[in-house]
């Protein structure tokens, strides 16, 4: 267990800024906030890989880079395996004395939900099964935002995207999202957590635990996207908080098999509060979709209850 780790904000704010300002991510994008919190929380050197996506194209427009740490992008589906290759090199080069035995490096991969839930799932699974000591972070904005808001396995039911548009007969995406965090936890790795940057203390704690884990760790971080979710760019953290307060996005962790729900809202808000704050769900408030709204609420309730039971039983 790694639950003795504490966050010292006073100390953390003095840590170096590893993602430099001046990158080209959109105003209101939650990704840089999440990345900075995670990299602030990790002590010592880090090496980062990033999947093709918003974060990658917006931070490394040649000949510029926002990364003040060693960084690599190779392709879309394989940020996990690329960083695992670097970790394998680290082990081998330590063995031959080419890098000092006492040099500690934390290996972190960032991928979007498309890169994680969909195209890269096999690669992540392989990295976890082989036990590479890396942190895989899914920056989850619930669609392929970099290519212009297409549905992914993380897109929630009812969301309008450009490939699951709301139309005369379809209410946006017709399928439920994939339970990625549970799939990650089912690999029986030391540490898996679901987090959100609005609760920075919680996210940074989880990043620290992931770094301290004795094996692979996965963080699934909700990163609201003003462009894709259709809300004003100053509302990002409020939207993220609503996701937790409605239990649409529970903040929890599975630490060596033990499930801990890190945030239980005093008053669980109806999921409609979360949905109506975003233009991508606007069509769900037509009278014709009242039944679907109920189904979405029932699904949120069911998942929340299962999570609480899982916590109680673990």
């Amino acid at each position, binding site marked *: 267990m790694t639950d003795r780790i504490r966050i010292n904000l006073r100390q953390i704010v003095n840590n170096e800024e590893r993602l430099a300002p001046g990158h080209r991510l959109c105003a209101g994008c939650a990704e840089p906030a999440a990345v900075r919190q995670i990299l602030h929380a990790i002590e010592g050197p880090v090496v980062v890989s990033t999947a093709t996506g918003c974060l990658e194209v917006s931070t490394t427009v040649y000949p510029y880079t926002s990364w003040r740490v060693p960084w690599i992008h190779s392709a879309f589906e394989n940020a996990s395996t690329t960083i695992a290759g670097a970790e394998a090199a680290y082990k*081998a080069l330590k063995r031959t004395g080419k890098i000092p035995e006492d040099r500690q490096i934390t290996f972190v991969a960032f991928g979007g939900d498309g890169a994680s839930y969909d195209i890269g799932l096999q690669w992540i699974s392989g990295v976890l099964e082989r036990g590479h000591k890396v942190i895989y972070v899914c920056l989850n904005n619930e669609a392929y935002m970099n290519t212009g808001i297409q549905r992914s396995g993380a897109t929630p039911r009812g969301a309008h995207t450009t490939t699951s548009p709301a139309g005369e007969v379809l209410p946006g995406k017709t399928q439920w999202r994939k339970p990625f965090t549970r799939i990650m936890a089912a690999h029986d790795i030391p540490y898996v957590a679901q987090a959100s940057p609005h609760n920075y203390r919680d996210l940074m704690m989880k990043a620290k635990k992931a770094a301290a884990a004795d094996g692979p760790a996965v963080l699934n971080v909700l990163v609201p996207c003003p462009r894709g979710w259709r809300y004003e760019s100053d509302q990002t953290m409020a939207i993220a908080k609503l996701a937790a307060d409605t239990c649409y996005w529970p903040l929890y962790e599975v630490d060596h098999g033990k499930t801990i729900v890190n945030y239980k809202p005093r008053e669980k808000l109806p999921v409609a509060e979360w949905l109506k704050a975003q233009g991508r769900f606007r069509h769900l408030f037509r009278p014709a979709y009242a039944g679907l709204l109920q189904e979405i609420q029932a699904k949120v309730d069911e998942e929340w209850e299962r999570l609480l039971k899982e916590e109680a039983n673990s």
Partner: protein
Amino acid sequence: MVTSKYMPLDGANAVSQAMRQIDPDVVAAYPITPQTAVVQNFSQFVADGIVHTEFVAVESEHAAMSACVGASAAGARVMTATSANGLALMWEMLYIASGMRLPIVMTVVNRALSSPLNIHCDHSDSMGARDSGWLQLYAETGQEAYDNTIQAIRIAEHPDLLLPVMSCQDGFITGHGVERVGILPDEAVREFVGQYKAKYSLLDVDNPVTMGAWDFTDYYFEHKRQQTEAMNNAMPIVRAVSEEYERLSGRPQPIVDCFGMDDAEYAVVVLSSTAGTSRAVARQLRAQGWKVGVVKPRVFRPFPAQEIVEAIKGCKAVAVLDRAISFGALYGSGPLFTDTTSALYNLGVTGLPIVNYIYGLGGRDTLPSMIESVYRDLRQVAESGDRGAPVRYLGLRE
């Protein structure tokens, strides 16, 4: 020169012996017939602690090349191995490895590509990757596969090159065929390959670098120009490493191996194991007074245009044998043919009658009698002055 120790080895085993002696930092690989023996043997070396390598037994070939890219970018000496569909699955990463100038060495045990599914030898896998920015060496024997693999390390890592290298041999024919293979002393190989010191490394945390950045319309073209410049300048590096290895091993390492070409009127240009069959036939025909020869490029990328043209330009007729089809190319010819004819034209040789034979697809046997028929055809072409069908098929039922 050092003395080789001779062992009975199949080509796959010969390559794993080379890998044992090279002792790379990282090997990431996935099993596929007929490459499997390479990975199996190497895993045993890891299990027995004979090598210091970090072996990453990945879940797919795409992951194999992805891990190789990450490891090579982290400054490690990296190797892998594959065949056929495995190479096809790596496709995306082949270009990324070469575009990032990562000196990864991969042994390819050539096998037909699906569909239909076939596990036997042809060159459609690596020939499809000929434009991916990797150097390609083709081995006639297990011995050459061993020798090429060791040289590939030095070629790839040469500071003026920094490009990945494929070391290819024929699946089953040499891959599973046991022959007498001369193995250099471990120490000699260790010294020959030396230590790899990457110019940039992800693990150099005090000097952070960004690798694989996003190139707009304003830089991508220049980066590709640099890459092609590196490949264009690769041949002298390949030659220098080959000559050094030749001095070490005592085994000739020509860029293009020529047999009987001093006076040959009819020549066969062919890669890999069928060069051996062709040479045996040529030897017999020469004993009967025919002036025939065999031209075997050991290096296919970069293409040894000068060497091939020099060898064949005085012939009366030439046959290029391809173990792959470039579908939709002129007459449905093969890549060795299109490159050879392009080289002839560009080097000012015109009027040389030249025909293409597609042979051995999916492991179809190529018998000495077939090669003999090629030479007879060439005489017919030269004597009649009529080239006839530009692309023909050997050993095919029609």
